[in-house]
C-alpha cells in the first residue's frame, strides 16, 4: 500500500526541476526556475527550511548530494552555465566553489562513487562533460571531455565502484586501482560510456534511440557480475542495457516499453530492484524485472485530483 507520508511546501516561486533526498532520507534538496536551491529537514514527517541558497542566475536544473563521508555537500547546475558546490560549515550552508567552464547550460550533475574520492561529473548543452575532483584545501581540479555529444549532453550517471580482480581488503590503506566509468546521454541520440585510463576516453557508444536521449541511470551493484543501464529518450522508448561480464564489453538493449510521449526521467531504487520512469503522460510508472527477464509494470503513480485512497493497493506481482 502506497501512502503519502509527508507533503513539503517548498515555497518555490516557479517550476521545480529537481528534488533529491540525502543519503539517509533526512534532508531534502530542491531547485527551481526561481534560481534558488532550498534544503529542508524532513525527519519525522516534518519540514524545516534549513537553507535558501542563491547564487545561480538562471533556472537551476539539478541538485546532487555528495556521500556523507565528505560532509554535507550539495552540487547544483543551472542554465546560467555554472555549477555551484555548496557546503555546510559550522551549521550554515555556503557556496564553497563555483565552476564556470561551460559555454552553455549545464544540464546534469552526478557525484562519483565515494570510493573514488570527491568527484563531480557535469554534462552541458555545449556538448562537453567536465569532471571536478576535490584535491584538498578548497581546491578542485578540472578535466574536460570536449564534444562528448554533438549538440549537447543531457544526463550523466556513474557506474558503481567495483574493484577489479579480487575484493581483498587493503589493510595498508592503499587505494585499490578502480576503473572509473560513467554513462552519458546526449542530443546525438547516443549513450556513451566513458572510462578513465589515465585519460578519459570514450569506451563505447550505445545506439538504439532515434531521438535525443534525455536520461541515463546506471543501476546500483547487487554483487552480480552484470551491469545494467536504463536510458530514456524523446522517442518515447525506455531501454534496459545489460552487459554480462565486465570484460566482455557487449551491451545488449532490451526495450522496456514504448510510451506515447517523451520520457524524461529514469531512476533506480537503492537496491536496484525497481526502476521508476517518468513520462510526458503525467505518470510515474514502476517496473520490476521478473525471473524470466521480462520487465513488468507494477504500479502507476499518477498525479491528479482527489484524495489518496487508503485502500489503493499496489499490485505486488510475485516474480513469475
Amino acid at each position, binding site marked *: 500500500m502506497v501512502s503519502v507520508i509527508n507533503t513539503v511546501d517548498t515555497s518555490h516561486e516557479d517550476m521545480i526541476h529537481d528534488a533529491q533526498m540525502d543519503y539517509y*532520507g533526512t534532508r531534502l534538496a530542491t531547485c527551481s526556475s526561481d534560481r534558488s536551491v532550498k534544503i529542508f529537514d524532513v525527519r519525522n514527517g516534518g519540514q524545516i527550511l534549513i537553507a535558501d541558497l542563491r547564487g545561480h542566475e538562471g533556472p537551476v536544473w539539478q541538485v546532487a548530494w555528495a556521500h556523507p563521508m565528505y560532509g554535507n555537500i550539495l552540487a547544483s547546475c543551472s542554465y546560467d552555465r555554472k555549477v555551484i558546490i555548496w557546503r555546510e560549515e559550522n551549521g550554515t550552508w555556503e557556496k564553497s566553489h563555483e565552476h564556470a567552464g561551460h559555454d552553455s547550460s549545464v*544540464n546534469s550533475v552526478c557525484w562519483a562513487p565515494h570510493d573514488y574520492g570527491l568527484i563531480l561529473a557535469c554534462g552541458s548543452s555545449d556538448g562537453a562533460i567536465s569532471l571536478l575532483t576535490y584535491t584538498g584545501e578548497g581546491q578542485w581540479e578540472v578535466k574536460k571531455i570536449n564534444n562528448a555529444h554533438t549538440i549537447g549532453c543531457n544526463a550523466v550517471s556513474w557506474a558503481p565502484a567495483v574493484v577489479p580482480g579480487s575484493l581483498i581488503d587493503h589493510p595498508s590503506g592503499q587505494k585499490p586501482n578502480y576503473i572509473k566509468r560513467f554513462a552519458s546521454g546526449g542530443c546525438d541520440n547516443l549513450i556513451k560510456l566513458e572510462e578513465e585510463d589515465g585519460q578519459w576516453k570514450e569506451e563505447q557508444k550505445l545506439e538504439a534511440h532515434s531521438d535525443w536521449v534525455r536520461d541515463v541511470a546506471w543501476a546500483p551493484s547487487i554483487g552480480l557480475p552484470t551491469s545494467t543501464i536504463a536510458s530514456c529518450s524523446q522517442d518515447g522508448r525506455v531501454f534496459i542495457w545489460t552487459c554480462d561480464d565486465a570484460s566482455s564489453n557487449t551491451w545488449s538493449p532490451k526495450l522496456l516499453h514504448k510510451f506515447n510521449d*517523451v520520457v524524461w526521467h529514469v531512476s533506480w531504487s537503492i*537496491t536496484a530492484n525497481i526502476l521508476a520512469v517518468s513520462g510526458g503522460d503525467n505518470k510515474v510508472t514502476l517496473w520490476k524485472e521478473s525471473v524470466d527477464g521480462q520487465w513488468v509494470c507494477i*504500479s502507476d503513480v499518477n498525479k491528479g485530483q482527489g484524495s489518496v485512497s487508503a485502500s489503493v*493497493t499496489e499490485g*505486488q*506481482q510475485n*516474480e513469475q
Partner: protein
Amino acid sequence: MEELDGEPTVTLIPGVNSKKNQMYFDWGPGEMLVCETSFNKKEKSEMVPSCPFIYIIRKDVDVYSQILRKLFNESHGIFLGLQRIDEELTGKSRKSQLVRVSKNYRSVIRACMEEMHQVAIAAKDPANGRQFSSQVSILSAMELIWNLCEILFIEVAPAGPLLLHLLDWVRLHVCEVDSLSADVLGSENPSKHDSFWNLPGNTQTLTELELKWQHWHEECERYLQDSTFATSPHLESLLKIMLGDEAALLEQKELLSNWYHFLVTRLLYSNPTVKPIDLHYYAQSSLDLFLGGESSPEPLDNILLAAFEFDIHQVIKECSIALSNWWFVAHLTDLLDHCKLLQSHNLYFGSNMREFLLLEYASGLFAHPSLWQLGVDYFDYCPELGRVSLELHIERIPLNTEQKALKVLRICEQRQMTEQVRSICKILAMKAVRNNRLGSALSWSIRAKDAAFATLVSDRFLRDYCERGCFSDLDLIDNLGPAMMLSDRLTFLGKYREFHRMYGEKRFADAASLLLSLMTSRIAPRSFWMTLLTDALPLLEQKQVIFSAEQTYELMRCLEDLTSRRPVHGESDTEQLQDDDIETTKVEMLRLSLARNLARAIIREGSLEGS
C-alpha cells in the same frame, strides 16, 4: 511468461490539477519523492502557476503502527527459532515442531487482534475506531487463512480427523455454529448422535468410523423414505440436513454465516470422512451454491478456495495482492518452505519465492528507526541476495547517536562487511573532525583502518600542538598500541608523545635517542623537524651531557640538511623575511648549542675512565 492478472494499480497523488504539468520523481533511500514540474527546459517559464509542493510517498507504512510492532517483534523471534530447527529432524517429531511454530504465529496474530480490538473500542474518535476495527478484521482474516493452511498443508490431517480439524476451524471463527449443533443434537435419537460424535479420535479406525457412519446414514435415509417424520416438517427438514441435503441446508442460510461454514456443515453430514484430495470439489460447489449467483466472491473467498484446492502458489499470490504489507506472506511462505512444500508443489522458483518475499518484508523494516534491527536477521537467512541487500540498506541508516553508530558497526563487523565498516567509520570520523573532536576522529579512523584519514587527523593534532603547545586527548594517543602502525604520521604522533612523556619522567637519555631516531628514521615529516630540533635544545642545555658525540653529529647533519633545502611556499615577501629572521636566530642558537654539546661530549667520552 504469465500475464499480469490485472492492470497495475494506480495511485493518485493529490495535487494541483493540471493536465498541463508533468510529474517529476526521485528515489530516497526508503521512499519516493514526486512533484509537479515541466521537463521541457526552457529559460523562460510559461507563467503557468506551479505547485510548490513535494510529496514524499512510501509503501510499507504499517511499519509505523504501534500495535503491529508487537506482531513484528514477536514473529521475529518465532522466525529465528524456525530457521534454527534441526534440519535432521524428520517425520513425526519434525512435523509436530512445525505445527507448533504455526500455532505460535497464530497466537501472536490473535494477541495483536485482541489488543487492537481494545484500542478500537476505546477510541474517542469514531473514524479512528473504524480504522482500528477494520485492521482487526484484516488480522482476523489473516488468522483464518493461516489456520486453514496449517490444517491442510502443515498438519496434513488425513481423512477422518480432517473434518474434525475443519470443524474446530469453523467453530473458532464462526460463533453461530454452536447454535446449529444444539439444534441437531436436540432432535430424535440423541443417543445415536451422542455416541457417534463423542469420539476419542484414536480408538476407532477409519473404516470402522466409515462403517458406523454409513449405517447411521442409511437409517436416516430410511426414516425419510418411510416418511416417519412426515407429520413434523421441522423434523423432516432436520433429517434432510442430517443427510447432507444441500437445499435443506441452504434454507438455514441465515444461521450459516458464510460459504465455508456451509461447506464444513455439508461435509459433516454427507461425507465426514472426506479425503483431502476431494475437498476442492466440495469447496467450489459450496461457494457457488452459497453465493447463489447473487454476489461474486471476495478476495478472502478466493484465497480460501485456493487453499482448499491445495494451490499454495495461488494462496500466496492472492494474499500478496490483498494485504497491505509483506508480513503475512513472508512468514507463511517461509514456514511452508520449511515443510518442504514449495518444491513439491512444482513452483518454478521454489525457495526463491521465499527469499523474494522475505527480502521485501525486511526492506520494509529498514524504513523504521528501530525495527531495522529485525530486518538484519531476515536478510541473514536469505542466502542469495540477503547479504548484498543488507549492505545496501545498512549504510543508509542515519547515525544520529554514537550508540546507534556502534550498533550498526557491530552488525557489520560481525558479518565481515569491511567496506561498510570503513565507510561508516569514515563518515563518523569526518563529522568528528568538523566538530573539532580530534580524539574521536582518530579512534574512528583507526577502527576503519583508514591510513589516509589517520594521517590527516594526526596532522591536525600536530598542528594543534604547534599552536597551543600541548596535546589534546592524551589518553588516546598514549594508548594507541599496535594501532600506531596504521600510518606513518600516526606512528610519529604516538612516538612524539612518548618523547614528551619520557622527558617528563626525566628519562633524558631515552628521550634523546627517541628524538633523534624520529628524524633519522624519516618518520617525522620534514615540516616538523625544526620543532623537534627546538625540542632538543633543553636536552642540549642540561648540565649533564645527554647526547653523545655521535648523536650530536647526527643532529648537526639533520640541521644542515634542513637548512640547505628550505621550502618556499608562496609566502609574501615580508613574511618570508620575518620568517627568515626567526629562522636564522633559531638556527644560530641550535648551531651554538650543538657545538657546545659536541665539545662536552667529546671531552666526556675521551675521559670516560676518569669519571
